[in-house]
Every structure is written in structure tokens, then in C-alpha cells.
């Protein structure tokens, strides 16, 4: 029973320093500080929600899943882009925790930033599978599935784990000075579709072959350092560039399409 009772005497407190700005009102920016109790497992998001519940409900934050899946709670925590829900106060080991909006994203209010530019770069990569024939989209011809071996899947799987949180975009030094650079997230997604055996687009390398494109990556590696999902965008970018430089040869064999025939009930097996 003892270890389930809450021990208030040992309650620790942290100073939370929160960036405040409302661009809609054009009233400038300042920091507010809050003393917040925390436990070993308290995340920065928990602490901010405590502030909203008991101290100042006007602090603007964006979050949803609280479990590093939705990618909406990214912010600069003690100077480094992190997910607030994935960062424990006890692990930061500082007496003050500073929360600021993600760098390289325009501020809307307090810790909420505008992701339009980031999402537009993502969209410009054509982040969907493109095939030359339309059989698998044509319902009258039956349902098809693609055959991919585990090795085929491994080539792109880790890049498909991207949750579009923007931490990498925020850490990248090139993004910080070049608005037209697609950024690590978008470039890694280009590689994700390029490496997928279901994708037959011939345009993928051309899209990133631009003065402000992939050549602006200097492999500072900061994107991979901050990525909370192990996507390793820097790896994807360098692998894509190796195809552009002709070091790697594109010998991708398009995935076989298999008809799913319900009558025989073979469930897509060959």
C-alpha cells in the first residue's frame, strides 16, 4: 500500500519559463514564469497543462496524442527542438525549463507555430505512391495487392515512421536561412517513395534537383539528432543524393501485383 500513496513531502518544483506572444494583437513578446510541481514521470506537456489548469489558462499550446504519435507538441525546450510530451522534466536536469516556439516556424501565438510552409514543402515532394497502370485503382477489375519482401519494406520503412512534427526542420541550419530549401523532412520523404518498389514515378530525382534543393544539405546531422521517431532524415538525404551523383544505380524492380481472388479464398497468397 505504501508505494501507492502520494508522497507530498517529497514533491519537487520546477520553474517553467514560457514564451508569450500574440501576433494577432501585435503587442510584442515576453516570458512568463510558473512554479510547477513535478514527479519523476512528469513531461513538459504535463507541466504546461498544469499551468493551463491552475495558473494561466491563456497559455497557447498545441497537442493531441500525448504519446509522441501525432507530432503536434513540438517546441524549443531549453534551446533544442523536442516533443513536449516525450520530454520528461526529470531527465532535463535543469532547475528552469524554458519553452519557446519551434524555430524556423512563424509564430501564431505563444508556443503555437504555423506549419503551412513545412507542409507545402512536404506536398511538393508528391508524397504518395505513383504507378503507371491503373489496375489496382480500378474496382471493376478486382482487387489487387502488391508483393513486397521484408527486404523491400526495410528500404523505406523507417522513413515512413515520420510524424511530421517538424523538429528536424527546426534544427536544420540550411532551413534557418533558405525558405525555399525543402528541409530534411520533405527530402527524406522523397527518398521514402523513391525507395518503395510500388512507386514507379520517374520524376522524383528531378523534383529535388534544384539550386535550393538537395544540394543545400551539408550533412550537419542535426535533423537526425532531434528526430523523436528514429527516421534519420540525414541518412535518407545522403542515400538519395548518392543516386543523383550516380554512385548508387537505380535497379529497383517494380513490385508484382497480385490479384486478390475472394472465390478461391487465397487471401492474396501466390
Amino acid at each position, binding site marked *: 500500500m505504501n508505494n501507492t500513496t502520494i508522497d507530498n513531502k517529497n514533491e519537487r518544483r520546477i520553474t517553467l519559463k514560457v514564451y508569450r506572444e500574440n501576433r494577432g494583437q501585435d503587442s510584442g513578446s515576453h516570458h512568463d514564469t510558473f512554479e510547477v510541481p513535478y514527479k519523476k514521470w512528469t513531461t513538459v506537456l504535463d507541466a504546461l497543462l498544469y499551468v493551463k489548469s491552475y495558473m494561466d489558462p491563456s497559455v497557447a499550446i498545441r497537442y493531441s496524442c500525448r504519446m509522441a504519435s501525432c507530432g503536434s507538441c513540438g517546441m524549443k525546450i531549453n534551446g533544442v527542438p523536442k516533443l513536449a510530451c516525450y520530454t520528461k522534466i526529470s531527465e532535463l536536469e535543469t532547475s528552469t525549463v524554458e519553452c519557446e516556439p519551434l524555430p524556423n516556424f512563424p509564430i501564431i501565438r505563444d508556443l503555437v507555430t504555423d506549419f503551412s510552409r513545412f507542409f507545402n514543402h512536404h506536398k511538393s515532394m508528391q508524397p504518395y505512391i505513383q504507378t503507371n497502370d491503373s489496375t489496382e485503382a480500378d474496382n471493376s477489375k478486382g482487387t489487387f495487392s502488391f508483393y513486397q519482401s521484408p527486404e523491400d519494406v526495410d528500404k523505406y520503412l523507417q522513413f515512413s515512421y515520420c510524424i511530421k512534427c517538424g523538429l528536424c526542420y527546426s534544427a536544420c*541550419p540550411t532551413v534557418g536561412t533558405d525558405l525555399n530549401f525543402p528541409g530534411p523532412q520533405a527530402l527524406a520523404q522523397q527518398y521514402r517513395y523513391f525507395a518503395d518498389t510500388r512507386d514507379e514515378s520517374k520524376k522524383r530525382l528531378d523534383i529535388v534537383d534544384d539550386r535550393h534543393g538537395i544540394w543545400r544539405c551539408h550533412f550537419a*546531422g542535426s535533423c537526425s539528432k532531434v528526430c523523436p521517431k528514429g527516421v534519420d532524415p540525414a541518412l535518407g538525404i545522403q542515400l538519395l543524393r548518392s543516386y543523383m551523383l550516380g*554512385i548508387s544505380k537505380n535497379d529497383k524492380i517494380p513490385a508484382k501485383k497480385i490479384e486478390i481472388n475472394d472465390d478461391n479464398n487465397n487471401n492474396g497468397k501466390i
Partner: protein
Amino acid sequence: MKEIERPTRNNLEGIGGWLNPSRYGWERISYWFQRLTGVFLLVYFIGHVYETSTIVNGQNAWESFLELTQTLWGHLFLIMVIGASTFHSANGIRLIFTHAGIGLGTPGRPDYPYNPASLNYRQKSGIWIALILAAAAMFYGFNVLFGV
């Protein structure tokens, strides 16, 4: 609803992001130092071309310019050039390979704590070796220039 006015460059990290290498580990330090030494070498290179071109004004002009490098500050500057060019070349060769996707590992199935393959110890060792080589070259240069 009133549309929120957003200057597109709002909250961009800018050159300040380049100049602060302290937050993202060794690879960011490598990026910063490659750029710093690159710009420094460019300045040196321009100065060097100017220096050697003084020969067209005769031997006296050439020799009076050369004397600049025989001063204390001239020696220190040359030691910096030695260090910068050693680091820039050694790390530059590493970067040529990484930019071609060589030595970074292969994609796999990420697992907690999600250590990225591309920031592996081969790459970090490459950066450390470039720094050690630069220090050794500067030490050697120091001995040649200031040694008895």
C-alpha cells in the same frame, strides 16, 4: 475573422543558427568548423595571391611583404592556416564520402532509443581524427616557426 499577419521570415533562426554549434553534437561542430575554416582559407587564399603578385613590383616589394610573415602575429596566422587547411582537407574528404551515401549504414527497423545510423561512430571518429590531425599539424608548425 481577422487574418493574422505573418511575415514569412518570422522566427527563422538565420545566420545565428550557423554560428552556434553547441546544441546538436559533433556533426554540427563539423559543419560549423568546415564552414569557418573554408571561409578562413578563402581569405588566406586571396591574401596569398596578393602576396605572391607583389613580385611584379620587384624584389624589394616581395621581400618587404614577406617580412610580415616573420613577425609574431605573422607566425600565429600561419599556424592558424596550417590547422585550418589540415582540418578542412581531412574532414572534407570524409564529407565527400558521406555526401555520396558511403559509410552511413543502411536503413532498418528503428527501435527505442532510436539512435540514428548516420550519426555513427565511424563518422564521429572521422571528425575527431581531423581535429587531432589539425592539432598535430599546428604543433609541428609551432615548433618549426618558433622552435630553436
